[in-house]
């Protein structure tokens, strides 16, 4: 395919990777299963997208390139040489850098220290640290990536997306030949995505860039080439310019996907609301926030990173002790908010960082799904494995969780399936007020559609949803009411009837 194209390019650009017939299994599960003739060549001057649904193997492929793990089958060549890095560090030494989806900074160190971790020797004389030089160097480095980040800030105080940008700066500082972003932008707001895309454009002439992603807008905004994978198999290599979004999603999913599934909200203003909030103030978050959640409705909440919307849900649910304000659940005032009591009242919370806060990753799908309802499933304190298995299997199949059985460990599941397990855990509690923080973060389009459909079904049966999301399209597609937070306060409320556009939302967020 596109032989003429690559021939002209070869004169200017260096070939970085050549991959052929790759196969990779994890304990009997085939994560990648290319045919022998499946072949990709990646050069500098190209921005590639590894595109595919959950479990397509795109992250696994990136992990192979970055030296996280090695293939069972196939050949990898790097700058013409055989390539089999034994570790991430070896891959880095050869010029291949990866920025993972999950945070990789040491939370207790400053940005500058994180940037030069492992390179402290360059900033010391006779074993003494030259802190000032490190900070100056860090500032220079950050200026090209994320000028708004202070090199003296402690990493844990940064937002998740700023952490990603710092990691990107760290990767760039080594002048890599190949830079891989593993779902890095899945967590980012528009402003930071713009910063990143700008950086990519600058790096492109000398670096091969690979983005592991399923976000269509992003794929079409920056990439030149597409490698499409599905269920571990090689589907196609395409030029982005010659591919339409519809074609791409058909190739990725193998069927048509419609995300515009929510019609009108069934919310009824006359009825007693499920949840009423007055004057909620959360330390470091929103101030004086009020909201009314009617049965059957979805209230979407958006804002820039750090605007305060992030902590609304934990303030209601009670994971942060320092929230004040009146919360009324189904007509009853709810004080002394704590997760255990919240669940008893029918409130359920899915946190944004599902791997750290939503799931016990090292434990079974079954244990995770029944975690909040062990009391209910037991008889006089005696646990019933049969009941746990039947409930968790039933929910896992209702949500279409892809796992061998509910006895599988959650860490073996892909991001979308992990999120489904979190949602299954919520559903198990049989509550009716869903507090969801970015429930489709890092999830592919197929799983996203399934989750949207689920929310539709739940609200049709009278449940209410508060949906905090960084993705404007998600807010527009799913919310009956959209509230935008700026500097800790509600800047604007839109109704679905107002038919707001993405630009309207952005205007009230900045």
């Amino acid at each position, binding site marked *: 395919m596109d032989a003429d194209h690559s021939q002209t390019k070869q004169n200017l650009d260096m070939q970085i990777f050549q991959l052929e017939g790759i196969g990779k299994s994890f304990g009997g599960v085939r994560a990648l299963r290319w045919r022998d003739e499946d072949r990709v060549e990646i050069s500098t001057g190209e921005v590639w997208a590894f595109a595919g649904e959950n479990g397509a193997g795109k992250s696994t492929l990136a992990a192979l390139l970055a030296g996280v793990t090695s293939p069972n089958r196939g050949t990898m060549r790097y700058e013409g040489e055989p390539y089999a890095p034994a570790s991430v560090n070896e891959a880095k030494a050869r010029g291949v850098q990866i920025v993972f989806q999950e945070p990789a900074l040491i939370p207790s160190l400053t940005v500058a220290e994180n940037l030069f971790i492992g390179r402290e020797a360059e900033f010391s004389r006779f074993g003494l640290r030259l802190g000032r030089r490190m900070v100056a160097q860090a500032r220079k480095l950050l200026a090209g990536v994320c000028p708004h980040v202070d090199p003296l800030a402690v990493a844990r105080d940064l937002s998740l997306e700023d952490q990603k940008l710092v990691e990107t700066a760290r990767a760039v500082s080594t002048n890599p030949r190949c830079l891989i972003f593993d779902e890095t932008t899945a967590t980012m707001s528009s402003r930071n995505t713009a910063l990143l895309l700008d950086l990519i454009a600058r790096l492109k002439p000398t670096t091969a860039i690979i983005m592991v992603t399923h976000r269509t807008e992003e794929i079409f905004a920056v990439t030149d080439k597409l490698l499409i994978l599905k269920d571990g198999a090689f589907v196609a290599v395409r030029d982005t310019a010659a591919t339409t979004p519809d074609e791409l999603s058909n190739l990725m999913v193998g069927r048509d996907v419609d995300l515009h599934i929510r019609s009108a909200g069934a919310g009824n203003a006359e009825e007693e609301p499920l949840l009423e909030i007055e004057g909620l103030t959360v330390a470091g978050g929103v101030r004086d926030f009020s909201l009314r959640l009617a049965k059957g409705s979805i209230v979407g909440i958006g804002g820039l990173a750090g605007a305060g919307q992030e902590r609304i849900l934990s303030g209601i649910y009670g*994971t942060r002790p320092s929230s004040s304000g009146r919360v009324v659940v189904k007509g009853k005032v709810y004080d002394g908010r704590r997760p255990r009591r919240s669940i008893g009242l029918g409130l359920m919370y899915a946190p944004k960082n599902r791997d750290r806060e939503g799931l016990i990753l090292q434990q079974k799908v079954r244990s995770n799904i029944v975690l909040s309802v062990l009391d209910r499933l*037991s008889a006089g304190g005696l646990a019933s494995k049969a009941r746990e*298995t039947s409930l968790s299997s039933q929910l896992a199949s209702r949500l279409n969780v892809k796992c061998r059985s509910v006895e599988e460990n959650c860490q073996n599941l892909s991001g979308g399936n992990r999120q489904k397990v979190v949602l299954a855990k919520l559903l198990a509690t049989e509550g009716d007020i869903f507090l969801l923080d970015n429930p489709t973060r890092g999830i592919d389009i197929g799983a996203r559609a399934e989750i949207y459909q689920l929310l539709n079904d739940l609200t049709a049966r009278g449940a209410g949803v508060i949906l905090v999301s960084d993705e404007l399209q998600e807010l527009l597609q799913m919310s009956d009411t959209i509230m935008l937070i700026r500097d800790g306060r509600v800047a604007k409320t839109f109704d679905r009837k107002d038919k707001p556009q993405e630009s309207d939302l952005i205007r009230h967020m900045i």
Partner: protein
Amino acid sequence: MNSDTGSGSESVKANEAPGRTMPNMRALVPYLAFVLIFAFFSIMAFDRFNTLHNFSTVLQQATVLAIVAFGMHFVISTGSIDLSVGSTLSLAGLVGASVSLWGGPLGIVAAIGVGALVGLFNGVVFTYLKVPSFMVSLGTLLAVQGLTIVYSRSNPIVIDASIMPIGMFPNIVYVAAGVFVLCYVLYNHTTFGRYCMAIGGDERVSGMSGLPVNAIKVSVFVVSGLLAGLGGIVMAARLGAATPTAGSAFELSVISAVVLGGTPLTGGVGSMQNTVIGALIIAMLGNGLIILGISSEIQKIITGLILILAVFLSLERGKIGVIK
């Protein structure tokens, strides 16, 4: 992989991939270690090691260790540690023995009560005052040790004859077996056990999922203290008297037994039956090395190295996020 994989999961069977029933070798390491050490002593000292009388000695030595280790197992499975069980065992034995002199069997209740109180103290300070369990129980270890000497004036206290039978063979084994069954059920078949595993797996997620995290954290220390107390009175019954040094350095053997059974100190996974094997290995090692006439210094060296080796082989690193 557990043997129960796939049971009752028809509804998700469509997604199952074939061929992952290979038994996990790591899970067998404690058993393998047991067999190897047994075989070693059998070969080296067949005439003295392989006698019924000696087996019953090993078993008796293992019982008290196992009883206390069952309690420790709960603490470790939540990711905490209780260093105070040795001192608690001594104090509880002494209090139990002196109570038995006028109250007979009430001595057992007293010993268990003393243990539970120490556990409650550990649990409350750890959970509500948020002092790390290692430090709380280290402090308690010292404090209770001092209390033991004050209480006994460094003298042994003879135990009443009415309690003696629980320390005799085979009764002592029945006591340990009974405690095992209770702990096994508590660990594997109750919500309490599930909660322990969940908290060890991820305390933060457990809290956000509405688990009564604080109550569970206090409870595991009460269980640990309570069983250390029972261990104290059983040991006193076995020896005929409670001594102030009965439990010195005992916590190390107890923790070793649990860890030899494959439970990582970070918690979240583990099995109660393996803790029995861990206790048997420790008891057998001590017994066998004495039979071989090895000096106590060399015994310590050997036991220490075997402990490290066994943990190296048996830890399921894949299931444990971070090893500290």
